[in-house]
């Protein structure tokens, strides 16, 4: 049964009773909340996700109002992981972004059987692109654009790697867009389904793009990485693809990974193999149409070899 099959009342009831469990890629989240924003946001952005019922969840999370004065005076929202708060509360209006950040935190801090890089991942023709990037580099915008043009979304933030197989695992979730990217994507892809915008967060204004139905449905299919392309948005340059040295790309990935340091020598080997097996580029751009073309070309060239 999908979330979209639930009536609003059923959705509400499940969330309030902590009986709302969904599959997100290889993970399961059991979510508990009375907060209207969260209920609506889940119903909207996770419409195509499957409900789960079998009593085991990887993560038990909750979004709730704090007790005491912060319930009314400058109201706040708390994120709880199995009953404990790993971070400080946020303004109540940011309940949904907090849930999204909290879900990232859960995965990045507890799933060390994967190597988890800070990168977006999209896939076409069975080949995946890893797009590492610091916040502000434009990887989420590029990711959202590619996904709107038929690329399969794995993640806009967490590149999950199966260490033994060397494959990437989808953790399909809404794409998080910030500030100008929101209007850019709305213009670029009028059919893209964007949720509410949340202003004044620590990252500016944030909104979420619902992942395409096909991406959600194929979340169980892994892919081998073929390219590592570090995007960088640049006002002056419309589209420029440059090869990057493997060593520099290695350091880029290692420094931006969530749990590379936990994997020690094994992580070092795996990352070394990854940059050797992939073509490494930096991509400077400001034109999304040209970006799509550039990426499509890479796939075409690859298919001919």
């Amino acid at each position: 049964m999908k979330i979209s099959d639930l009536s609003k009342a059923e959705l509400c009831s499940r969330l309030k009773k902590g009986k709302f469990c969904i599959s997100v890629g290889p993970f399961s989240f059991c979510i508990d909340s009375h907060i209207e924003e969260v209920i609506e946001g889940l119903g909207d952005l996770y419409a195509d996700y499957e409900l789960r019922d079998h009593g085991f969840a990887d993560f038990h999370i909750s979004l709730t109002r704090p007790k005491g004065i912060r319930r009314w005076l400058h109201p706040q929202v708390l994120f709880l992981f199995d009953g404990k708060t790993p971070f400080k509360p946020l303004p109540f209006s940011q309940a949904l972004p907090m849930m999204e950040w909290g879900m990232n935190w859960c995965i990045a801090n507890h799933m060390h059987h994967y190597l988890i890089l800070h990168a977006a991942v999209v896939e076409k023709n069975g080949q995946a692109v890893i797009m590492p990037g610091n916040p502000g580099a434009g990887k989420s915008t590029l990711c959202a654009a590619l996904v709107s043009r038929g690329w399969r979304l794995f993640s806009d933030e967490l590149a999950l790697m199966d260490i033994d197989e060397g494959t990437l695992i989808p953790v399909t979730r809404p794409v998080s867009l910030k500030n100008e990217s929101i209007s850019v994507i709305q213009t670029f892809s009028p059919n893209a389904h964007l949720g509410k915008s949340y202003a004044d967060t620590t990252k500016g204004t944030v909104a979420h793009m619902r992942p395409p139905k096909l991406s959600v449905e194929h979340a169980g299919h892994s892919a081998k990485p073929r390219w590592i392309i570090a995007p960088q948005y640049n006002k002056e340059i419309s589209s420029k693809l440059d090869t990057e040295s493997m060593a520099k790309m290695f350091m880029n990935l290692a420094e931006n990974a969530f749990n590379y340091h936990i994997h020690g020598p094994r992580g070092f080997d795996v990352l070394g193999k990854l940059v050797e097996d992939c073509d490494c580029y930096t991509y400077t751009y400001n034109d999304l149409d040209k970006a799509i073309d550039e990426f499509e070309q890479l796939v075409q060239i690859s298919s001919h070899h």
Partner: protein
Amino acid sequence: MISIMSKLNGYLLVKILRNSDLANQLDLKQWDLVIRQARRADLLPQLYYDLNKKGILKALPQEAFCHLESAYHLSVAHQQAVRWEVNRIQSALRKLEVPVTLLKGAAYVLADLPCANGRLFSDVDILVPKVVLDEAEQSLMAHGWMSVDTDPYDQRYYRQWMHELPPLRHVKRQTSLDVHHSILPETARWHPDAKKLLQAVKPLEGYERLYVLSPVDMVLHSATHLFSEGEIDHGLRDLYDLDALLRDFGKQNDFWELLYERAREMDLTRPLYYALRYTQYFLETPVPESSGKRVTGQPVRALRYLMDLLFQRALNPDHPSCNDAFTGIARWLLYLRGHYLRMPLYLLLPHLVRKSMRRNEV
């Protein structure tokens, strides 16, 4: 009254720790609970090791296995970090030419003890002779460690009344270091002689001027730490360590004799009593029958009964599934007890008042 020892009940995690074969019988719903309890108790990696030893890891449902494997990787990384931290501490204190004794987790790792497996660390504890404390502090600070708390009251609290320097943190690595000169404050109810501890330390082979406590002292230290602390947030984990130490050292000839003798010598019979009582209760630690005669340190029946009520609750994982209506009060009373054991009343009352005022400020 039913003997406490026969009430071999326990929450799911405790049952599995006692008998890891039971893991084969768990359904997914039970695994969901065990994992959450173990994570809260900081025992998730140890579960991995226990089940691996029994050869039943691969037969577990994939959903459960992932969590155990993840915790295992984390614990390996922690071990690497502790070894490095000890190396840096050694390097910083090299010129002093004094023995540095590792305590607790760091000692277990460097001495390759069974309870090192799966341990997660938040800090490193070392013991140095009191006479070199100032020099040691200076050397450490010259190598990048800084006092965390600059509040003058807290500084005095540690230096004057406690058995350690105020906690240090390394500026680059952000790791925590506690430098002790004894295992209990001078103001405490029990009075173990630090000099005797230092006389009995064992050198770590392959490491210059690095030591660990003797086996009996290691057990006594672990017992003292657990049963004189106010905030018991890792009670079950500490019991697990004690259980592992006792099972391992217990194989040595005369260990139990020496343990009781040493406890008497060091005025630590009471914490040892509790350690043996509750490791047996929770984890069925094998304590030799004959040693029953030598059980000194036993509190009067009323106190025993009260401590059972408190510890049988507070030593469980601090997880909603392991709490009953009285767990909160039990923890609070033990918190008071911890302070009472460490400081005389005339110091304790103003200290508690000050602490509670601080809490409200934050």
